Protein backbone atom coordinates (compact mmCIF):
# COMPACT_ATOMS: atom_id res chain seq x y z
CA UNK A 1 0.00 0.00 0.00
CA UNK A 2 2.68 2.37 1.10
CA UNK A 3 4.94 1.45 -1.81
CA UNK A 4 2.08 1.86 -4.22
CA UNK A 5 1.42 5.29 -2.78
CA UNK A 6 5.05 6.34 -3.24
CA UNK A 7 5.08 4.94 -6.76
CA UNK A 8 1.89 6.79 -7.70
CA UNK A 9 3.16 9.99 -6.12
CA UNK A 10 6.36 10.01 -8.16
CA UNK A 11 4.55 8.83 -11.25
CA UNK A 12 2.22 11.80 -11.16
CA UNK A 13 5.04 14.18 -10.32
CA UNK A 14 6.95 12.99 -13.38
CA UNK A 15 3.89 13.20 -15.63
CA UNK A 16 3.08 16.68 -14.37
CA UNK A 17 6.66 17.84 -14.76
CA UNK A 18 6.73 16.68 -18.38
CA UNK A 19 3.41 18.43 -18.92
CA UNK A 20 4.74 21.71 -17.52
CA UNK A 21 8.26 21.64 -18.91
CA UNK A 22 7.53 20.38 -22.42
CA UNK A 23 6.14 23.66 -23.81
CA UNK A 24 9.21 25.51 -22.54
CA UNK A 25 11.47 22.93 -24.09
CA UNK A 26 9.55 23.22 -27.33
CA UNK A 27 9.82 27.01 -27.30
CA UNK A 28 13.49 26.92 -26.39
CA UNK A 29 14.49 24.55 -29.21
CA UNK A 30 12.24 26.28 -31.71
CA UNK A 31 13.86 29.61 -30.96
CA UNK A 32 17.14 28.26 -32.31
CA UNK A 33 15.68 26.83 -35.50
CA UNK A 34 15.31 28.31 -38.95
CA UNK A 35 12.63 27.86 -41.57
CA UNK A 36 13.89 24.45 -42.76
CA UNK A 37 14.24 22.98 -39.28
CA UNK A 38 10.78 24.10 -38.18
CA UNK A 39 9.13 22.50 -41.16
CA UNK A 40 11.26 19.38 -41.11
CA UNK A 41 9.16 17.39 -38.64
CA UNK A 42 9.34 17.08 -34.88
CA UNK A 43 12.89 17.62 -33.74
CA UNK A 44 14.31 18.43 -30.34
CA UNK A 45 18.03 17.73 -30.09
CA UNK A 46 20.25 20.50 -31.48
CA UNK A 47 23.24 19.54 -33.66
CA UNK A 48 21.75 16.07 -34.08
CA UNK A 49 18.22 16.74 -35.27
CA UNK A 50 18.84 20.22 -36.60
CA UNK A 51 21.51 22.84 -36.95
CA UNK A 52 20.89 25.57 -34.28
CA UNK A 53 21.22 29.20 -35.28
CA UNK A 54 20.64 32.49 -33.50
CA UNK A 55 18.50 34.15 -36.18
CA UNK A 56 15.32 34.04 -34.02
CA UNK A 57 17.06 35.86 -31.18
CA UNK A 58 18.93 38.30 -33.41
CA UNK A 59 15.65 39.56 -34.86
CA UNK A 60 14.61 40.71 -31.40
CA UNK A 61 17.57 43.06 -31.02
CA UNK A 62 18.10 44.14 -34.62
CA UNK A 63 16.79 47.56 -35.56
CA UNK A 64 13.76 47.68 -37.86
CA UNK A 65 15.92 49.21 -40.59
CA UNK A 66 17.83 45.92 -40.76
CA UNK A 67 14.64 43.84 -40.83
CA UNK A 68 14.40 43.17 -37.10
CA UNK A 69 12.10 44.28 -34.30
CA UNK A 70 14.06 45.93 -31.53
CA UNK A 71 12.35 44.81 -28.31
CA UNK A 72 15.00 46.05 -25.86
CA UNK A 73 13.45 49.43 -25.29
CA UNK A 74 9.85 48.14 -25.14
CA UNK A 75 11.06 45.48 -22.72
CA UNK A 76 12.41 48.03 -20.27
CA UNK A 77 9.38 50.24 -20.85
CA UNK A 78 7.17 47.32 -19.85
CA UNK A 79 9.27 46.55 -16.79
CA UNK A 80 9.24 50.19 -15.71
CA UNK A 81 5.50 50.73 -16.26
CA UNK A 82 4.52 47.45 -14.58
CA UNK A 83 6.75 47.88 -11.54
CA UNK A 84 5.91 51.55 -10.97
CA UNK A 85 2.17 51.05 -11.44
CA UNK A 86 2.19 47.92 -9.23
CA UNK A 87 4.13 49.64 -6.46
CA UNK A 88 1.87 52.70 -6.42
CA UNK A 89 -1.23 50.48 -6.63
CA UNK A 90 -0.06 48.37 -3.69
CA UNK A 91 0.70 51.41 -1.53
CA UNK A 92 -2.57 53.21 -2.31
CA UNK A 93 -4.57 49.99 -2.33
CA UNK A 94 -3.24 48.83 1.03
CA UNK A 95 -3.98 52.18 2.67
CA UNK A 96 -7.50 52.27 1.23
CA UNK A 97 -8.12 48.66 2.17
CA UNK A 98 -7.02 49.26 5.77
CA UNK A 99 -9.34 52.23 6.05
CA UNK A 100 -12.21 50.24 4.54
CA UNK A 101 -11.55 47.37 6.89
CA UNK A 102 -11.23 49.35 10.11
CA UNK A 103 -13.28 52.51 9.82
CA UNK A 104 -16.94 53.02 9.03
CA UNK A 105 -17.72 55.32 6.14
CA UNK A 106 -21.16 56.60 5.38
CA UNK A 107 -22.33 59.04 2.75
CA UNK A 108 -26.04 58.73 2.24
CA UNK A 109 -26.69 55.15 1.21
CA UNK A 110 -23.02 54.57 0.34
CA UNK A 111 -21.26 52.47 2.96
CA UNK A 112 -18.00 50.54 3.23
CA UNK A 113 -19.15 47.58 1.14
CA UNK A 114 -20.37 49.87 -1.62
CA UNK A 115 -16.99 51.57 -1.78
CA UNK A 116 -15.22 48.22 -1.93
CA UNK A 117 -17.60 47.17 -4.69
CA UNK A 118 -16.94 50.39 -6.56
CA UNK A 119 -13.26 49.43 -6.74
CA UNK A 120 -14.02 45.94 -7.99
CA UNK A 121 -16.60 47.23 -10.47
CA UNK A 122 -13.77 48.91 -12.35
CA UNK A 123 -12.67 45.43 -13.37
CA UNK A 124 -16.10 44.21 -14.38
CA UNK A 125 -16.31 46.39 -17.48
CA UNK A 126 -14.77 45.02 -20.69
CA UNK A 127 -11.59 46.92 -21.60
CA UNK A 128 -13.17 48.31 -24.74
CA UNK A 129 -15.69 50.20 -22.62
CA UNK A 130 -12.91 51.81 -20.62
CA UNK A 131 -10.69 52.52 -23.59
CA UNK A 132 -12.77 55.42 -24.90
CA UNK A 133 -12.78 57.49 -21.68
CA UNK A 134 -9.14 56.58 -21.05
CA UNK A 135 -8.19 57.72 -24.54
CA UNK A 136 -10.05 61.01 -24.21
CA UNK A 137 -8.76 61.55 -20.69
CA UNK A 138 -5.12 60.96 -21.60
CA UNK A 139 -5.39 63.07 -24.74
CA UNK A 140 -6.93 65.95 -22.76
CA UNK A 141 -3.98 66.00 -20.35
CA UNK A 142 -1.45 65.38 -23.11
CA UNK A 143 -0.32 62.02 -21.81
CA UNK A 144 -1.22 59.87 -24.79
CA UNK A 145 1.71 57.86 -26.08
CA UNK A 146 3.72 58.35 -22.88
CA UNK A 147 4.97 56.15 -20.04
CA UNK A 148 3.36 58.39 -17.43
CA UNK A 149 0.00 58.06 -19.16
CA UNK A 150 0.27 54.29 -19.18
CA UNK A 151 1.25 54.24 -15.50
CA UNK A 152 -1.83 56.32 -14.63
CA UNK A 153 -4.09 53.95 -16.54
CA UNK A 154 -2.47 50.86 -15.06
CA UNK A 155 -2.92 52.22 -11.54
CA UNK A 156 -6.64 52.52 -12.26
CA UNK A 157 -6.63 48.90 -13.42
CA UNK A 158 -4.38 47.40 -10.74
CA UNK A 159 -5.40 49.25 -7.60
CA UNK A 160 -8.84 47.53 -7.43
CA UNK A 161 -7.05 44.17 -7.30
CA UNK A 162 -4.89 45.35 -4.42
CA UNK A 163 -7.86 46.83 -2.55
CA UNK A 164 -9.94 43.73 -3.06
CA UNK A 165 -7.27 41.31 -1.81
CA UNK A 166 -6.13 43.49 1.08
CA UNK A 167 -9.63 44.33 2.43
CA UNK A 168 -10.27 40.64 2.72
CA UNK A 169 -6.88 40.11 4.32
CA UNK A 170 -7.20 42.93 6.85
CA UNK A 171 -10.66 41.69 7.81
CA UNK A 172 -9.00 38.48 8.92
CA UNK A 173 -6.46 40.26 11.14
CA UNK A 174 -8.18 40.63 14.53
CA UNK A 175 -9.04 44.24 15.36
CA UNK A 176 -7.84 43.52 18.89
CA UNK A 177 -4.29 43.46 17.55
CA UNK A 178 -4.61 47.08 16.43
CA UNK A 179 -6.29 47.96 19.71
CA UNK A 180 -3.52 46.33 21.72
CA UNK A 181 -0.98 48.34 19.74
CA UNK A 182 -2.87 51.55 20.56
CA UNK A 183 -2.99 50.59 24.23
CA UNK A 184 0.73 49.82 24.11
CA UNK A 185 1.44 53.38 23.08
CA UNK A 186 1.24 53.42 19.29
CA UNK A 187 -0.69 56.14 17.53
CA UNK A 188 -2.92 54.83 14.70
CA UNK A 189 -0.17 55.29 12.07
CA UNK A 190 2.39 53.44 14.17
CA UNK A 191 -0.12 50.68 14.90
CA UNK A 192 -0.60 50.23 11.15
CA UNK A 193 3.09 50.34 10.27
CA UNK A 194 4.55 48.44 13.22
CA UNK A 195 1.90 45.83 13.88
CA UNK A 196 -0.71 45.44 11.15
CA UNK A 197 1.58 45.71 8.13
CA UNK A 198 4.23 43.22 9.30
CA UNK A 199 1.43 40.71 9.87
CA UNK A 200 0.03 41.33 6.40
CA UNK A 201 3.11 40.46 4.33
CA UNK A 202 1.49 37.33 2.87
CA UNK A 203 -1.43 39.41 1.62
CA UNK A 204 0.92 42.05 0.23
CA UNK A 205 2.82 39.39 -1.69
CA UNK A 206 -0.31 37.91 -3.20
CA UNK A 207 -1.64 41.36 -4.14
CA UNK A 208 1.74 42.38 -5.56
CA UNK A 209 1.95 39.21 -7.61
CA UNK A 210 -1.46 39.78 -9.17
CA UNK A 211 -0.65 43.42 -9.93
CA UNK A 212 2.62 42.49 -11.64
CA UNK A 213 0.99 39.71 -13.66
CA UNK A 214 -1.97 41.79 -14.83
CA UNK A 215 0.23 44.78 -15.57
CA UNK A 216 2.81 42.76 -17.47
CA UNK A 217 0.39 40.84 -19.67
CA UNK A 218 -1.81 43.76 -20.67
CA UNK A 219 -1.95 44.20 -24.43
CA UNK A 220 -5.17 46.07 -25.03
CA UNK A 221 -4.50 49.40 -23.33
CA UNK A 222 -0.86 49.40 -24.35
CA UNK A 223 -2.06 49.00 -27.92
CA UNK A 224 -4.77 51.68 -27.79
CA UNK A 225 -2.95 54.34 -25.83
CA UNK A 226 0.47 54.33 -27.49
CA UNK A 227 1.56 54.95 -31.09
CA UNK A 228 5.17 55.64 -31.97
CA UNK A 229 6.96 57.36 -29.11
CA UNK A 230 6.47 54.65 -26.54
CA UNK A 231 5.84 50.96 -27.00
CA UNK A 232 5.36 48.12 -24.58
CA UNK A 233 6.56 44.56 -25.04
CA UNK A 234 3.26 42.79 -25.84
CA UNK A 235 2.49 45.29 -28.61
CA UNK A 236 5.97 44.99 -30.06
CA UNK A 237 5.85 41.21 -30.12
CA UNK A 238 2.70 41.32 -32.24
CA UNK A 239 4.66 43.33 -34.78
CA UNK A 240 6.73 40.21 -35.37
CA UNK A 241 3.94 38.54 -37.24
CA UNK A 242 4.19 38.67 -41.01
CA UNK A 243 3.14 36.60 -44.00
CA UNK A 244 5.47 33.80 -42.92
CA UNK A 245 4.93 32.98 -39.25
CA UNK A 246 8.39 33.41 -37.67
CA UNK A 247 8.13 30.58 -35.14
CA UNK A 248 11.75 31.03 -34.08
CA UNK A 249 11.53 34.69 -33.12
CA UNK A 250 8.04 34.25 -31.65
CA UNK A 251 9.44 31.49 -29.42
CA UNK A 252 12.36 33.63 -28.39
CA UNK A 253 10.11 36.57 -27.53
CA UNK A 254 7.72 34.28 -25.63
CA UNK A 255 10.63 33.13 -23.49
CA UNK A 256 11.91 36.63 -22.71
CA UNK A 257 8.44 37.89 -21.89
CA UNK A 258 7.65 35.06 -19.52
CA UNK A 259 11.03 35.32 -17.77
CA UNK A 260 10.14 38.09 -15.26
CA UNK A 261 7.02 36.20 -14.17
CA UNK A 262 9.05 33.04 -13.61
CA UNK A 263 11.51 35.01 -11.49
CA UNK A 264 8.64 36.46 -9.43
CA UNK A 265 7.15 32.98 -9.03
CA UNK A 266 10.47 31.59 -7.79
CA UNK A 267 10.88 34.36 -5.21
CA UNK A 268 7.37 33.82 -3.90
CA UNK A 269 7.92 30.06 -3.86
CA UNK A 270 11.11 30.56 -1.81
CA UNK A 271 9.14 32.65 0.65
CA UNK A 272 6.34 30.09 0.74
CA UNK A 273 8.68 27.22 1.48
CA UNK A 274 10.10 29.08 4.46
CA UNK A 275 6.64 28.77 5.91
CA UNK A 276 6.21 32.50 6.17
CA UNK A 277 2.82 32.61 4.51
CA UNK A 278 1.08 30.38 7.01
CA UNK A 279 0.46 30.66 10.70
CA UNK A 280 1.00 34.39 11.10
CA UNK A 281 -2.58 34.93 12.12
CA UNK A 282 -4.56 32.21 13.78
Amino acid at each position, binding site marked *: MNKLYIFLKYFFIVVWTVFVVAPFLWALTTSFKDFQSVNGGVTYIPWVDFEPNLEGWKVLIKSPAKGGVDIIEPYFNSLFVTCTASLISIILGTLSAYALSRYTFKAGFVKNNDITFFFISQRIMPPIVLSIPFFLFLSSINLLDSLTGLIVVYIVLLMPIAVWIMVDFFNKV*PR*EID*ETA*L*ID*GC*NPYQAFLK*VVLPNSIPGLIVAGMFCIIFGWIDFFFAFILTFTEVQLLPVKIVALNSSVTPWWSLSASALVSVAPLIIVAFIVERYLSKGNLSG*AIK
Partner: protein
Amino acid sequence: MDLVANNLSYKPDDQYHLNEVSFNFKEGNLYTILGRTLSGKTTLLKTIAGLLTPDSGEIEFDGKNFLKIPVWERNVAMVYQQFINYPHLNVFENIAFPLKQRKIDQSIIKEKVMDALKSVGLLGYENRKIQELSGGQQQRVSLARSLVKNAKILLLDEPLVNLDYKLREQLREEFKNLFSKGLADETILIYSTTDPRETMELNGEVIVLDEGKVLQVGPAKEIFENPNSLKVAEISNDPPMNIIEAKISDNQIRFEGIDVEAPQHLSKLTEDGLKIGLRSSDIELNENGHEFEVELAEISGSETLLHLKRGDTKIIVSIEEVLNFKIHDKVKINFKIDRAYAFHADGKLASSPFGGLNG
Protein backbone atom coordinates in the same frame (compact mmCIF):
# COMPACT_ATOMS: atom_id res chain seq x y z
CA MET B 1 -5.17 58.86 41.81
CA ASP B 2 -8.82 57.99 41.37
CA LEU B 3 -10.69 56.91 38.29
CA VAL B 4 -14.13 58.48 38.43
CA ALA B 5 -16.92 57.93 35.93
CA ASN B 6 -20.19 59.81 35.78
CA ASN B 7 -23.28 58.55 33.94
CA LEU B 8 -21.48 56.83 31.10
CA SER B 9 -23.90 55.80 28.37
CA TYR B 10 -23.17 54.10 25.08
CA LYS B 11 -25.91 53.08 22.68
CA PRO B 12 -24.49 52.25 19.23
CA ASP B 13 -27.65 50.45 18.10
CA ASP B 14 -31.12 50.15 19.59
CA GLN B 15 -29.73 48.63 22.79
CA TYR B 16 -27.78 50.18 25.62
CA HIS B 17 -24.27 48.77 25.98
CA LEU B 18 -23.70 51.13 28.87
CA ASN B 19 -26.58 52.79 30.66
CA GLU B 20 -25.75 55.60 33.09
CA VAL B 21 -22.74 53.83 34.57
CA SER B 22 -20.99 55.67 37.39
CA PHE B 23 -18.18 54.55 39.65
CA ASN B 24 -15.30 55.76 41.75
CA PHE B 25 -12.25 53.51 41.57
CA LYS B 26 -9.41 54.16 44.01
CA GLU B 27 -5.75 53.33 43.43
CA GLY B 28 -4.31 50.15 44.91
CA ASN B 29 -7.64 48.33 44.73
CA LEU B 30 -9.02 45.41 42.77
CA TYR B 31 -12.42 45.86 41.14
CA THR B 32 -14.32 42.95 39.66
CA ILE B 33 -16.99 43.57 37.06
CA LEU B 34 -19.39 40.67 37.25
CA GLY B 35 -22.00 40.15 34.57
CA ARG B 36 -23.29 37.69 32.04
CA THR B 37 -22.12 37.73 28.41
CA LEU B 38 -23.23 40.87 26.57
CA SER B 39 -23.86 42.72 29.82
CA GLY B 40 -21.49 45.50 28.77
CA LYS B 41 -18.32 44.41 30.55
CA THR B 42 -16.05 44.62 27.52
CA THR B 43 -17.67 47.90 26.45
CA LEU B 44 -16.95 49.38 29.86
CA LEU B 45 -13.31 48.25 29.81
CA LYS B 46 -12.83 49.55 26.26
CA THR B 47 -14.35 52.86 27.29
CA ILE B 48 -11.90 53.14 30.17
CA ALA B 49 -9.04 52.22 27.82
CA GLY B 50 -10.21 54.84 25.34
CA LEU B 51 -10.99 52.47 22.48
CA LEU B 52 -14.63 53.53 22.62
CA THR B 53 -16.04 56.98 23.18
CA PRO B 54 -19.25 57.03 25.20
CA ASP B 55 -22.26 58.92 23.84
CA SER B 56 -22.54 60.81 27.09
CA GLY B 57 -20.96 60.94 30.51
CA GLU B 58 -17.52 61.74 31.82
CA ILE B 59 -14.43 59.88 32.95
CA GLU B 60 -11.85 61.58 35.08
CA PHE B 61 -8.49 60.18 36.08
CA ASP B 62 -6.21 61.99 38.47
CA GLY B 63 -8.50 64.99 38.14
CA LYS B 64 -8.02 65.16 34.36
CA ASN B 65 -10.70 64.64 31.73
CA PHE B 66 -9.81 61.17 30.48
CA LEU B 67 -12.00 61.40 27.39
CA LYS B 68 -9.73 64.12 25.96
CA ILE B 69 -6.65 61.88 26.18
CA PRO B 70 -6.11 59.45 23.26
CA VAL B 71 -5.66 55.74 23.98
CA TRP B 72 -1.93 55.74 23.31
CA GLU B 73 -1.29 58.40 25.93
CA ARG B 74 -3.50 56.99 28.67
CA ASN B 75 -1.00 54.53 30.15
CA VAL B 76 -3.47 51.71 30.60
CA ALA B 77 -2.86 48.01 30.02
CA MET B 78 -5.39 45.48 28.84
CA VAL B 79 -5.56 41.71 28.58
CA TYR B 80 -8.21 40.34 26.24
CA GLN B 81 -10.13 37.11 26.58
CA GLN B 82 -8.82 36.04 23.19
CA PHE B 83 -5.09 35.59 23.57
CA ILE B 84 -3.96 38.72 21.76
CA ASN B 85 -0.24 39.06 21.07
CA TYR B 86 1.77 40.32 18.11
CA PRO B 87 2.14 37.23 15.89
CA HIS B 88 5.17 38.60 14.01
CA LEU B 89 7.25 39.05 17.18
CA ASN B 90 8.70 36.44 19.51
CA VAL B 91 7.91 36.28 23.23
CA PHE B 92 10.65 38.67 24.28
CA GLU B 93 9.85 41.22 21.56
CA ASN B 94 6.16 41.02 22.40
CA ILE B 95 6.72 41.93 26.02
CA ALA B 96 9.33 44.56 25.13
CA PHE B 97 7.01 46.23 22.61
CA PRO B 98 5.31 48.77 24.92
CA LEU B 99 8.68 49.67 26.45
CA LYS B 100 10.35 50.17 23.07
CA GLN B 101 7.44 52.38 22.19
CA ARG B 102 8.50 54.60 25.10
CA LYS B 103 12.11 54.66 23.88
CA ILE B 104 13.47 53.17 27.08
CA ASP B 105 17.13 52.13 27.26
CA GLN B 106 17.82 48.65 25.84
CA SER B 107 19.41 47.27 29.02
CA ILE B 108 16.53 48.42 31.20
CA ILE B 109 14.07 46.87 28.75
CA LYS B 110 15.87 43.57 29.01
CA GLU B 111 15.83 43.63 32.79
CA LYS B 112 12.14 44.53 32.96
CA VAL B 113 11.10 41.92 30.40
CA MET B 114 13.00 39.22 32.27
CA ASP B 115 11.31 40.26 35.51
CA ALA B 116 7.90 40.08 33.87
CA LEU B 117 8.68 36.69 32.32
CA LYS B 118 9.71 35.44 35.72
CA SER B 119 6.55 36.66 37.40
CA VAL B 120 4.34 34.83 34.89
CA GLY B 121 6.51 31.71 34.94
CA LEU B 122 7.78 31.85 31.37
CA LEU B 123 11.54 32.23 31.89
CA GLY B 124 13.38 30.38 29.13
CA TYR B 125 10.61 30.98 26.59
CA GLU B 126 11.83 34.40 25.45
CA ASN B 127 12.93 33.30 21.97
CA ARG B 128 9.86 31.21 21.18
CA LYS B 129 7.39 32.18 18.53
CA ILE B 130 3.94 33.05 19.83
CA GLN B 131 2.33 30.40 17.63
CA GLU B 132 4.39 27.69 19.33
CA LEU B 133 2.87 28.41 22.74
CA SER B 134 -0.23 26.88 24.28
CA GLY B 135 -3.27 29.03 25.01
CA GLY B 136 -2.33 29.39 28.65
CA GLN B 137 1.20 30.43 27.78
CA GLN B 138 -0.05 32.93 25.21
CA GLN B 139 -2.28 34.47 27.82
CA ARG B 140 0.69 34.67 30.21
CA VAL B 141 2.64 36.54 27.55
CA SER B 142 -0.12 39.10 27.17
CA LEU B 143 -0.33 39.40 30.95
CA ALA B 144 3.43 39.94 31.11
CA ARG B 145 3.15 42.58 28.39
CA SER B 146 0.58 44.44 30.44
CA LEU B 147 2.54 44.08 33.69
CA VAL B 148 5.80 45.36 32.24
CA LYS B 149 4.35 48.79 31.53
CA ASN B 150 3.61 49.63 35.15
CA ALA B 151 0.34 51.03 33.90
CA LYS B 152 -1.75 52.99 36.33
CA ILE B 153 -4.85 51.17 35.18
CA LEU B 154 -4.75 47.45 34.42
CA LEU B 155 -7.79 46.02 32.63
CA LEU B 156 -8.35 42.27 32.44
CA ASP B 157 -11.27 41.26 30.24
CA GLU B 158 -12.32 37.73 31.17
CA PRO B 159 -8.69 36.64 30.91
CA LEU B 160 -9.35 33.03 31.88
CA VAL B 161 -12.52 32.27 29.98
CA ASN B 162 -10.91 30.66 26.94
CA LEU B 163 -8.66 28.34 28.94
CA ASP B 164 -9.43 24.78 29.89
CA TYR B 165 -10.57 23.96 33.38
CA LYS B 166 -7.26 22.97 34.89
CA LEU B 167 -5.25 25.85 33.47
CA ARG B 168 -7.95 28.23 34.59
CA GLU B 169 -7.67 27.06 38.18
CA GLN B 170 -3.89 27.30 38.05
CA LEU B 171 -3.74 30.71 36.43
CA ARG B 172 -6.45 32.07 38.73
CA GLU B 173 -4.29 31.06 41.69
CA GLU B 174 -1.28 32.82 40.13
CA PHE B 175 -3.34 35.92 39.44
CA LYS B 176 -4.41 36.03 43.05
CA ASN B 177 -0.81 35.82 44.20
CA LEU B 178 0.25 38.50 41.75
CA PHE B 179 -2.52 40.83 42.83
CA SER B 180 -2.06 40.25 46.54
CA LYS B 181 1.67 40.91 46.26
CA GLY B 182 0.49 44.46 45.90
CA LEU B 183 1.10 44.54 42.16
CA ALA B 184 1.76 48.21 42.62
CA ASP B 185 0.16 50.35 45.21
CA GLU B 186 -0.78 52.96 42.64
CA THR B 187 -2.46 50.55 40.23
CA ILE B 188 -6.17 50.32 39.73
CA LEU B 189 -6.93 46.77 38.75
CA ILE B 190 -10.18 46.09 36.92
CA TYR B 191 -11.10 42.48 36.23
CA SER B 192 -14.20 41.43 34.34
CA THR B 193 -15.70 37.98 34.59
CA THR B 194 -18.90 35.97 34.21
CA ASP B 195 -17.83 33.54 36.89
CA PRO B 196 -19.16 34.17 40.44
CA ARG B 197 -16.61 31.77 41.90
CA GLU B 198 -13.78 33.77 40.36
CA THR B 199 -15.33 36.93 41.76
CA MET B 200 -15.49 35.54 45.28
CA GLU B 201 -11.95 34.18 45.12
CA LEU B 202 -10.48 37.47 43.90
CA ASN B 203 -12.31 39.10 46.80
CA GLY B 204 -12.23 42.65 45.53
CA GLU B 205 -14.88 45.31 45.20
CA VAL B 206 -17.59 43.96 42.90
CA ILE B 207 -19.66 45.84 40.33
CA VAL B 208 -22.60 43.79 39.11
CA LEU B 209 -23.47 44.77 35.56
CA ASP B 210 -26.52 43.74 33.55
CA GLU B 211 -27.73 45.14 30.21
CA GLY B 212 -25.29 47.99 30.63
CA LYS B 213 -26.65 48.99 34.00
CA VAL B 214 -24.91 48.77 37.37
CA LEU B 215 -27.15 46.68 39.62
CA GLN B 216 -25.09 46.59 42.80
CA VAL B 217 -21.68 47.68 44.06
CA GLY B 218 -19.99 46.29 47.11
CA PRO B 219 -17.32 43.96 48.49
CA ALA B 220 -17.53 40.38 47.18
CA LYS B 221 -18.73 39.11 50.54
CA GLU B 222 -21.53 41.68 50.64
CA ILE B 223 -22.72 40.80 47.12
CA PHE B 224 -22.73 37.15 48.05
CA GLU B 225 -24.50 37.61 51.36
CA ASN B 226 -26.93 40.37 50.50
CA PRO B 227 -27.71 40.49 46.78
CA ASN B 228 -30.04 43.47 46.44
CA SER B 229 -32.26 41.88 43.80
CA LEU B 230 -33.24 38.61 42.16
CA LYS B 231 -31.11 39.47 39.16
CA VAL B 232 -27.99 39.98 41.24
CA ALA B 233 -28.72 36.72 43.07
CA GLU B 234 -28.92 34.94 39.71
CA ILE B 235 -25.78 36.54 38.28
CA SER B 236 -23.66 36.10 41.41
CA ASN B 237 -24.35 32.40 41.89
CA ASP B 238 -23.32 29.46 39.78
CA PRO B 239 -25.49 27.48 39.41
CA PRO B 240 -27.97 30.36 39.66
CA MET B 241 -29.88 30.68 42.91
CA ASN B 242 -33.06 28.60 43.02
CA ILE B 243 -36.15 30.77 42.97
CA ILE B 244 -39.31 29.30 44.42
CA GLU B 245 -42.68 31.00 44.33
CA ALA B 246 -44.09 30.53 47.79
CA LYS B 247 -46.52 31.94 50.31
CA ILE B 248 -45.75 32.58 53.93
CA SER B 249 -48.59 32.31 56.42
CA ASP B 250 -48.90 31.13 59.98
CA ASN B 251 -45.11 31.04 60.20
CA GLN B 252 -45.00 28.41 57.44
CA ILE B 253 -43.47 28.67 53.95
CA ARG B 254 -45.86 26.87 51.62
CA PHE B 255 -45.21 25.69 48.04
CA GLU B 256 -46.11 22.62 46.00
CA GLY B 257 -47.84 21.05 48.96
CA ILE B 258 -44.76 21.40 51.12
CA ASP B 259 -44.83 23.24 54.42
CA VAL B 260 -41.56 24.38 55.91
CA GLU B 261 -41.31 26.34 59.11
CA ALA B 262 -40.25 29.89 58.30
CA PRO B 263 -37.05 31.08 59.93
CA GLN B 264 -37.23 34.24 61.96
CA HIS B 265 -35.95 36.57 59.25
CA LEU B 266 -38.74 35.50 56.88
CA SER B 267 -41.62 34.98 59.25
CA LYS B 268 -43.07 38.46 58.96
CA LEU B 269 -43.28 38.51 55.16
CA THR B 270 -46.84 37.68 54.21
CA GLU B 271 -47.26 39.60 50.95
CA ASP B 272 -48.38 38.07 47.67
CA GLY B 273 -45.98 37.12 44.91
CA LEU B 274 -43.11 36.53 47.29
CA LYS B 275 -40.16 34.59 45.91
CA ILE B 276 -37.89 32.47 48.07
CA GLY B 277 -34.27 32.18 46.97
CA LEU B 278 -32.12 29.27 48.06
CA ARG B 279 -28.63 28.37 46.83
CA SER B 280 -28.16 24.97 45.28
CA SER B 281 -25.63 24.20 47.99
CA ASP B 282 -28.18 24.94 50.71
CA ILE B 283 -30.31 21.95 49.79
CA GLU B 284 -29.26 18.48 50.86
CA LEU B 285 -30.32 14.90 50.31
CA ASN B 286 -32.20 13.60 53.32
CA GLU B 287 -34.13 10.36 53.87
CA ASN B 288 -36.85 12.19 55.78
CA GLY B 289 -37.13 15.08 53.33
CA HIS B 290 -39.56 16.06 50.61
CA GLU B 291 -39.88 13.99 47.49
CA PHE B 292 -38.73 15.43 44.12
CA GLU B 293 -38.26 13.86 40.70
CA VAL B 294 -34.88 13.86 38.93
CA GLU B 295 -34.97 15.64 35.55
CA LEU B 296 -31.25 15.63 34.89
CA ALA B 297 -28.09 14.79 36.77
CA GLU B 298 -24.78 16.28 35.62
CA ILE B 299 -21.43 15.52 37.11
CA SER B 300 -19.07 18.46 37.03
CA GLY B 301 -15.65 17.92 38.51
CA SER B 302 -16.16 16.34 41.91
CA GLU B 303 -19.74 17.51 42.37
CA THR B 304 -23.09 16.39 41.09
CA LEU B 305 -25.72 18.86 39.93
CA LEU B 306 -29.24 17.48 40.32
CA HIS B 307 -32.02 19.17 38.39
CA LEU B 308 -35.21 18.36 40.31
CA LYS B 309 -38.87 18.97 39.74
CA ARG B 310 -42.02 18.90 41.79
CA GLY B 311 -45.20 20.23 40.23
CA ASP B 312 -44.24 23.50 38.53
CA THR B 313 -41.25 24.08 40.76
CA LYS B 314 -37.83 23.32 39.36
CA ILE B 315 -34.69 23.48 41.45
CA ILE B 316 -31.02 22.63 41.18
CA VAL B 317 -29.17 20.90 44.00
CA SER B 318 -25.40 20.60 44.12
CA ILE B 319 -23.94 17.69 46.02
CA GLU B 320 -20.27 17.58 46.95
CA GLU B 321 -19.70 14.05 45.69
CA VAL B 322 -20.12 12.06 42.52
CA LEU B 323 -23.43 10.23 42.57
CA ASN B 324 -25.31 8.42 39.84
CA PHE B 325 -28.99 9.09 39.29
CA LYS B 326 -31.37 8.06 36.58
CA ILE B 327 -33.91 10.39 35.04
CA HIS B 328 -37.30 10.08 36.81
CA ASP B 329 -35.68 8.70 39.97
CA LYS B 330 -37.34 9.95 43.14
CA VAL B 331 -35.08 11.65 45.67
CA LYS B 332 -35.78 13.16 49.06
CA ILE B 333 -34.33 16.51 49.98
CA ASN B 334 -34.24 18.91 52.86
CA PHE B 335 -33.99 22.70 52.71
CA LYS B 336 -31.55 24.61 54.92
CA ILE B 337 -34.32 27.11 55.22
CA ASP B 338 -32.56 29.38 57.67
CA ARG B 339 -30.28 30.33 54.78
CA ALA B 340 -33.16 31.27 52.48
CA TYR B 341 -33.60 34.71 50.92
CA ALA B 342 -36.87 36.40 50.16
CA PHE B 343 -37.53 38.75 47.24
CA HIS B 344 -40.51 41.00 46.61
CA ALA B 345 -42.65 40.47 43.51
CA ASP B 346 -40.71 43.26 41.74
CA GLY B 347 -37.42 41.42 42.34
CA LYS B 348 -36.04 43.60 45.14
CA LEU B 349 -34.52 41.88 48.15
CA ALA B 350 -37.03 41.52 50.99
CA SER B 351 -34.92 39.71 53.53
CA SER B 352 -31.58 37.97 53.73
CA PRO B 353 -30.22 35.52 56.30
CA PHE B 354 -27.21 37.82 56.66
CA GLY B 355 -29.26 40.71 57.86
CA GLY B 356 -29.89 42.71 54.70
CA LEU B 357 -33.29 44.47 54.95
CA ASN B 358 -34.54 42.27 57.76
CA GLY B 359 -38.27 41.83 57.99
